């Protein structure tokens, strides 16, 4: 296979081979990405760039390579969502309240990546505390999608909350990126930027050192240009962690090994409740196409039912804010982060620090969460939401008696314009309609680019698997990827800017 001439056009797997074969040094590869990141500043994809650290890590990898010691991600430059705590590198969670926070520790997931030899290019922009679907709630300004509608210069959103990671992957600013997904924050931005994004099973990756949004839903995962790259990165990210009681001690398989085993004999479920009235015809069309592709490769297509789907979004918007309202209580200006000046007592310190430190979407969710946990409302909201969550999870268990993997659209539509939905939170929340169910059930979900709209904007398909069956999900994802043959790339308009 002939390698691209520009190393930033490499897939991660291609870069891995090139570096191992010494066709390019890690430092050369890293330098190319550092340049690409600098050139792409109009996208606002990074909160913090770390070129010096990247060069140092790349040099160390080159030294190891010279000695013939090759770790799985040796010398490969990655972008890290700014929700992962990185030792000595500012970690903001996209928030003003953490705008000066430099962690004295490294998250387990990123430590796993560095242990595998990866190189840190920088920390990517994101919705504040991962709350958003468009990357417009970031304190550091919105991320601009590398994609534009055909014949339009309107700025589009990259999705969210892992919008900086999605933009970086799709604009070739890194070989791969990490994201986190609480209700769709990996899969939705991946889908609208033509990238691959996987939310693994809850408990597959350690949450230790990741700034918490909603603890029972948060899960880290890879964002990449190919399904193979997602398999490689996930293998490195995942581990059981004694520091995270909710991480699960199940061996991490070699996801890459089974990638090409094909879908022959697999049963692919199509959940009928995911056909929504008023959905754009292009969404239904791409979904049908996906089913046909898999069918053509030998899979059996079966219709299944997930009867409680319509309750998923309201359930999610009770559970997630409830947990968030408690998780974000620690940002009080007392020990770290921004502290308000000119305060007259402790209550004033709390109120001013939090009023200045949090943006409107975060405040909205803290208010909702505080409300649903309040005495007198707990039973009506939080407790009922937990019961619904159990029913939603049971829907999946039932469906998986009839099929191995579910195929659904990833999002209800393509990327939208910046500012288009900020005034209407509910229309924004609807972006997660196909993805939140998966978080509520704790299952693995994969978004794979499947095609373009008439305006030339990417659309993705989602594959949902059984708990800890990422291997099958990735294998089916690879089959979709092969059939879709999605080769479109955004024009690098930002370089001219």
């Amino acid at each position, binding site marked *: 296979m002939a390698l691209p001439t520009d190393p930033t056009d490499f897939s991660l797997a291609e870069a891995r081979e090139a570096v191992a074969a010494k066709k390019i040094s890690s430092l050369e590869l890293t330098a190319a990405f550092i340049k690409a990141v600098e050139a792409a500043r109009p996208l606002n994809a990074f909160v913090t760039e770390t070129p010096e650290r990247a060069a140092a890590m790349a040099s160390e990898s080159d030294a190891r390579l010279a000695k013939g010691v090759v770790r799985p991600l040796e010398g490969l430059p990655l972008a890290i969502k700014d929700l992962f705590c990185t030792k000595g590198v500012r970690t903001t969670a996209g928030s003003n309240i953490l705008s000066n926070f430099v962690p004295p520790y490294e998250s387990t997931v990123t430590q796993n990546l560095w242990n595998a030899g990866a190189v840190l290019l920088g920390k990517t922009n994101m919705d504040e505390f991962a709350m958003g679907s468009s990357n417009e709630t970031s304190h550091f300004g919105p991320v601009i999608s590398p994609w534009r509608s055909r014949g339009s210069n309107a700025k589009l959103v990259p999705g969210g909350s892992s919008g900086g990671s999605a933009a970086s992957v799709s604009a070739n600013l890194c070989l791969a990126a990490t994201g986190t997904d609480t209700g769709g924050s990996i899969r939705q931005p991946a889908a609208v930027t033509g990238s691959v994004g996987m939310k693994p099973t809850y408990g597959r990756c350690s949450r*230790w050192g990741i700034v918490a949004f909603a603890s*029972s839903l948060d899960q880290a995962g890879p964002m990449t240009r190919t399904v193979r790259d997602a398999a490689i990165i996930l293998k490195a990210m995942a581990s059981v962690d004694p520091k995270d009681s909710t991480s699960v001690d199940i061996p991490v398989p070699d996801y890459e090994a089974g990638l090409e085993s094909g879908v022959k004999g697999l049963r692919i479920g199509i959940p009928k409740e995911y056909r929504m009235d008023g959905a754009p015809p292009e969404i239904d069309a791409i979904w049908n196409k996906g089913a046909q592709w898999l069918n053509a490769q030998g899979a059996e297509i079966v219709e299944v039912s997930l009867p409680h789907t319509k309750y998923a979004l309201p359930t999610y918007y009770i559970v997630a804010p409830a947990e968030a309202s*408690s998780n974000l209580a620690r940002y009080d200006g007392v020990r770290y982060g921004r502290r308000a000046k000119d305060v007259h007592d402790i209550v004033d310190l709390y109120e001013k620090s939090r009023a200045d430190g949090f943006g409107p979407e975060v405040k909205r969710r803290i208010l909702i969460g505080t409300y649903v946990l309040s005495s007198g409302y707990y039973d009506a909201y939080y407790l009922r939401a937990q019961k619904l969550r159990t029913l939603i999870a049971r829907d999946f268990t039932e469906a998986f008696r009839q099929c191995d993997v579910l195929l659904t659209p990833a999002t209800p539509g393509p990327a939208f314009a910046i500012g288009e939905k900020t005034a209407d939170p509910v229309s924004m929340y609807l972006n997660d309609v196909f993805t939140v169910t998966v978080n509520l059930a704790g299952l693995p979900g994969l978004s794979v680019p499947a095609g373009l709209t008439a305006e030339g904007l990417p659309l993705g398909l989602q594959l949902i698997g059984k708990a800890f069956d990422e291997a099958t999900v990735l294998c089916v994802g690879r089959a979709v990827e092969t059939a879709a043959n999605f080769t479109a790339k955004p024009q690098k308009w930002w370089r001219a800017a």
Partner: protein
Amino acid sequence: MSATRSKYIQGSTGPWEIVVGLEVHCQILSAAKLFSGAATEFGADPNSQVSFVDAAMPGMLPVINKKCVEQAVRTGLGLKAKINLTSVFDRKNYFYPDLPAGYQISQYKNPIVGEGEVFIDLAGGETVRVGIERLHMEQDAGKSLHDQHPDHSFVDLNRSGVALMEIVSRPDMRSSEEAAAFLKKLRAIVRYLGTCDGNMDEGSMRADVNVSVRKPGAGLGTRCEIKNVNSMRFIAQAIEFEARRQIDVLEAGGTIKQETRLFDSRAGETRSMRSKEEAHDYRYFPDPDLLPLVLDQALVDEIAASLPELPDEKRVRFMQMGLSAYDATVLVAERETADYFEAMLAAGADAKAAANWLNNEYFGRLNKAGLSIADGPVPAAANSAIVQMVSADVISGKIAKDVLDVVWSDGGDPRAIVEERGLKQVTDTDAIEKAVDAVIVANPDKVEAAKAKPQLVGWFVGQVMKSTGGKANPSAVNAILKARLGLPEGG
């Protein structure tokens, strides 16, 4: 039963009954905190025992300390309580500078230990059962320091995350004495179990006291909760004050508002802290960072098998050895005391003699010196040797006290001391007869007097003891004297 033991308080409208329930916070004995590996030692420099978890840094997660769980189970078993094999940790949400996460991890709806019981021993010899409602685990908060700087407050997070057991009693106590006896017994139990050091001065044991009053036979009255009372004496004072306050309010035609009150130990009174309306809404919900705590019955059985003998059982056993109820109660009150007593028996002393010796001689000296049994200068083996020498008529009871004085101040082996100083009792009849005869010969007038007044034999005993340096066996002296003086045996 409750009616008979009630110590009613007299009000202007008649008698009132006090109803008391306690919530006791015990710091779990463990080298590390409940959810972090940080140390728990008392008195360390501020903020020197704080992990990233204790400081609630972003992205930090709690991991349960198995040792603390085992200690809670152990305590539950010691309270004869139901162990819940599944329990759940909840978050109790409120803002306070010494609560870094903005929530305390506690157990709200599903505690690790359910219903149990404690028997308390009252001064009159009566035993009262106090029900235990539950025991749950939770984290301690840090400490705000307001006296370090004119216009700043500081926070010490050393205590933040330290493991506590909250033991909640039923409202089964009817007086301040019963409340104090309950706390004392609970303290003894946790100290026997080794699950809490019971040190109230260092805050390892503190109590919230719920007090209400009612007319005898009436339903429960509205209670007030008195927060953080940190000594047995203060608890009694707080209850007495609060009961009287409530009676005065009710008798003046007022009603008791359910509220939280603080005890001011200097003024000896309780003061309103916040009313029910002002109470925090803690927004409890299950902590999503922690899975439900599921215990294996085998672990519970293993802990049950390793429990030490507890005060109640020990007391029964001591009484079976012939001890009085009072002696047995005193000896089992502290594990160290019981251990000391048993060490004396193991070294060969008779149970009754050892108990008498401790209660009549040794404890008094310890009290006078302000020493605990652990800090006392005389080892159990030495006291055992003294008691055995008395029992075997090797030394008299009087000499025994002298020997104890020597061991107390100079140390040493009591048997060697008796040997070296020639303190052995004279039981040789010939030697005693000689001494008796010498006294009789020297005092013919007293002999005559004694014939008319037999009580005078005591004077002769004294003289003989004096001439033998206290070493003559007193009963032998008595018998020989009576024979010589022609007095009847006995009497």
